[in-house]
């Protein structure tokens, strides 16, 4: 009981879960302490480190490990700083909020998942090998699998599975895109280095010069400063509400197809802006249309993405153009790929019948939990410590980057290492073409998601 009381005290007093030494002493033992801290004053520098904290996967990070603490020396962004420089607390697994050994926690997790009639394995913020292990466990336990970004991913997937698309990748955009049209996203709020790495570049393979790109924003309250070229040229901004994004894209599509607009719902001024824009799109050699499914309002996103993709296809009848989807951080693109090659479907697959059964709506985590169809949940979040699983009354096993919050609430909690910090691995990038290796840059003794899941599986 004592442990519990102190843990809840810690919970209330800590704003971030960086534990002060005295409090650490009070509540947790550290059996690994001696070996998972690098010797004091030892310093090591790592180059070409891949950052796993958004799906751009910048792999030019220079990182210093000073006695186990990481500091970004070159490149990176605030998100990367938060991710790499977070000092993870040294905590134990817990069962019902009480410390346990790793073995006990694994056994208990296996018991919960093994007994469950319909478990759900979700969150799945993990790397490729973590996703592979999760799929294997799902098969054995007859689970549903989904991802924390599933709601956004499914919007893209529905467009793909009904009509398809023409896409490009980041190196192509960097070297060929003379016009970049951001639709409902500014490109950098969730992908901080997008412009620095891919847009405002010195030169390119296709002869495109540094200041020559035209940047266009279509949307509401987008942060457009990054779209100003190094020589001060302002981007084109077409304002429209979130709800009317799809319609605006359709108007551009109509204009590009040489048809006129008669609708009264669009002002003359906006129409004239869109006509000018369409003219420029027609003359661009490689316009790229960028969207982020997670930043579009859910009720309209599928239609908007569909309009963008059809517009791109139509442009390609006579000139080149391409789409680029920004999505799939938190291991999302990796999970979709692994799930596809192992089951045939990208997500929301149920193994209860022994084979993968796909239902992109009914097997959504919120649906499954809301209808109380599931009787146990495994939640995985190895990049973000405090990504809290959805509220539910069913028994929950949580694997996350060490987090006091998670440790308190789950029936079984197991702290795990972060891919690219605590262990090697690999991840897929937003463009669904490139997969990058992750390095191990520190020693914390926390095991990987795939190790823990395999150990759970071995107990079943």
């Amino acid at each position, binding site marked *: 009981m004592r442990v519990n009381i102190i843990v809840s005290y810690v919970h209330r007093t800590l704003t971030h879960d960086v534990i002060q030494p005295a409090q650490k002493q009070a509540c947790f033992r550290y059996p690994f302490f001696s070996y998972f801290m690098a010797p004091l004053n030892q310093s090591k520098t790592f180059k070409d480190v891949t950052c796993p904290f958004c799906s751009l996967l910048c792999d030019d990070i220079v990182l210093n490990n000073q006695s186990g603490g990481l500091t970004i020396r070159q490149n990176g962004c605030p998100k990367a700083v938060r991710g790499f420089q977070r000092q993870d607390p040294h905590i134990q697994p817990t069962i019902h909020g009480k410390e346990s050994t790793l073995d006990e926690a694994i056994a208990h997790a296996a018991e919960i998942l093994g007994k469950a009639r319909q478990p759900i394995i979700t969150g799945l913020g993990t790397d490729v090998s973590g996703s592979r292990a999760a799929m294997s466990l799902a098969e054995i336990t007859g689970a549903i699998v989904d991802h924390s970004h599933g709601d956004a991913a499914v919007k893209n997937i529905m467009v793909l599975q009904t009509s398809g698309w023409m*896409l490009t*990748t980041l190196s192509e955009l960097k070297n060929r895109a003379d016009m970049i049209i951001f639709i409902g996203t500014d490109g950098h709020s969730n992908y901080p280095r997008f412009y620095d790495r891919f847009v405002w570049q010195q*030169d390119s393979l296709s002869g495109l010069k540094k200041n020559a790109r035209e940047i266009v924003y279509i949307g509401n309250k987008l942060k457009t400063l990054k779209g100003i070229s190094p020589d001060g040229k302002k981007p084109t901004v077409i304002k429209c509400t979130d709800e009317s994004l799809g319609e605006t894209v359709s108007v551009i599509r109509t204009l590009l197809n040489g048809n006129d607009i008669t609708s009264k719902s669009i002002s003359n001024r906006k129409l004239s802006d869109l006509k000018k824009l369409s003219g420029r799109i027609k003359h661009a050699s490689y316009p790229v249309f960028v969207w982020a499914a997670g930043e579009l309002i859910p009720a309209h996103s599928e239609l908007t993405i569909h309009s963008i993709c059809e517009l791109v296809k139509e442009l390609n009848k006579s000139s080149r153009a391409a789409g680029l989807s920004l999505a799939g951080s938190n291991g999302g693109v990796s999970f979709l790929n692994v799930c596809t090659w192992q089951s045939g479907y990208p997500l929301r697959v149920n193994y209860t019948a022994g*084979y993968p059964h796909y239902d992109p709506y009914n097997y959504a985590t919120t649906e499954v939990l809301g209808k109380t169809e599931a009787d146990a949940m495994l939640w995985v979040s190895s990049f973000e410590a405090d990504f809290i699983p959805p509220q539910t009354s069913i028994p929950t096993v949580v694997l996350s980057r060490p987090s006091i919050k998670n440790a308190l609430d789950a029936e079984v909690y197991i702290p795990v290492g972060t891919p690219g910090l605590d262990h090697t691995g*690999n991840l897929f990038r937003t463009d669904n073409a490139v997969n990058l290796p992750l390095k191990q840059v520190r020693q914390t003794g926390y095991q990987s998601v795939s190790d823990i899941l395999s150990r759970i599986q071995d107990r079943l």
Partner: protein
Amino acid sequence: MLTKLSGGMVYDPMHGVNGKRRDIYIRDGRIVRKPSANTNIDKIIDVNNKIVMAGAIDIHTHIGGGNINIARMLVPEDHRADPVKRTKNTRAGSGYVAPSTFTTGYRYAEMGYTSCFEPAMLASNARQTHLEMADIPIVDTGAYVLLGNDDFFLRLLSKGADQQLINDYVAWTMHVTQAIAVKVVNPGGINAFKFNQRKLDLDDSNKYYDITPRKILKTLTRALHDLGVPHPLHVHGCNLGVPGNMQTTLDTMQAVEGLPMHMTHIQFHSYGTEGDRKFSSGAAAIAEVFNKNKNLSIDVGQIMFGQTITASGDNMMQYKAHVHAHPNKWVSMDIECDAGCGIVPFRYRDKNFVNALQWCIGLETFLLADDPWRIFLTTDHPNGGPFTSYPHLIRLLMDKSFRHDMLLSLNRHAQKVTNLASIDREYTLYEIATMTRAAPAKSLGLSGYGHLGIGANADITIYTDLKNKEKMFERPEYVFKSGQLIVRKGKIQQTTSGITHTVKPEFDRGIERHLKKYFDRYLTVSLGNFKISDDELRSYGKKTIKIHACQ
């Protein structure tokens, strides 16, 4: 453990053995000499009168990597119709035309295939390709890396770089992507499509780099020859699928001036423009040139009627083909200043003139090509049809009357214009063993594979000799992988993990200085992270990397 396969009829073309009764002994995963009389034999399997061949090798099948995974993602309806349940020794998954990785491995093994080669690995997507292949159980795998549309190579050529530098780049790419061969797809055309060119014939210039496909083919065939890579340049030529492309193909055959070259899915490149429908067979003309030019090898890319999905790096031509998409959804991508991909679902219909004639053209090619050591059995899975249709295809080749009956059920006009009915040839078991075992192993330089000699890896398939060759090849009695019994009567007994086949030609590491500059300036990954080390590759799951010798 010493196992004896007793009394089988052995077909081993690498040693000229044509249906001879031979006992085979297996120990530690290899075929060994007949032991001395007093040696204890642990297990004797009676295979009296059964047909014994080496495990089959598929030299061209799209089983892993970004292209096929997008194909899988695109067609849930394909999987829904063919769910695959988990068993106590196999993983769940799904078919059919774009099967999941586990299902791919099991279905290949169940047909007696023990090695499969993914022919279209993008260097920029090599990790994904190997990761997926690591999840294909039982069979060995290997991949051909794509070159010839990447901006680095085209820049080298346009600057007149010398052959030595090109060779270093080719070898470097093979090393860092863990490839066994090099393929070029629509030479220069995928790149040209990025600059809005819609067609690139053998002597047309890529507008931006001012390079012709001919030049690319000559340079790359020379590079592989100089490096001693066993498999010659694997060429998916210009103008895929276009009526009249047979002339391009005939010209391409002569374009490399006698150097070795493999021309893949040649069926799709053998179209004339004769007749009122302006679509005719070029198979006879192409087979004639093929028969004379011993530097060439081909695989067919036979089409099979029914639903499939086409997945190709050739997005210039796949973009054109999208108007035929069935169902109407398709994907095209420009990828990483490296290559591209185009995915178009398609249904081949036996009552459709063009499709029926495509079927005939493939079979004409098989039957008119006279050297099974230089022609390989493929459907370009899944482009012409899924690999699971191989037993049916083998029956078409081995059974003239069956072939004839099939022909009579096709579009009538196609029946009139094909000369298929007049070809009496029936492939023999020896020839089938050659084109599906010995020849691909030889072409890829897989020493110890594709044959049943002493020391060979014990990949062995044993069939019951049936008159119906489709039935016979569909369900072998026994399949051994590296000496382990994997399949008995068409059922998986245990699953193992195959190995990765590679070659690693020598090169001057100085090439990395050029590459480092290029990567830092233009690309979006660092040079160091582009490379897949042996340790990384092994960590995916296939623990053994076999490096085959260069010649």
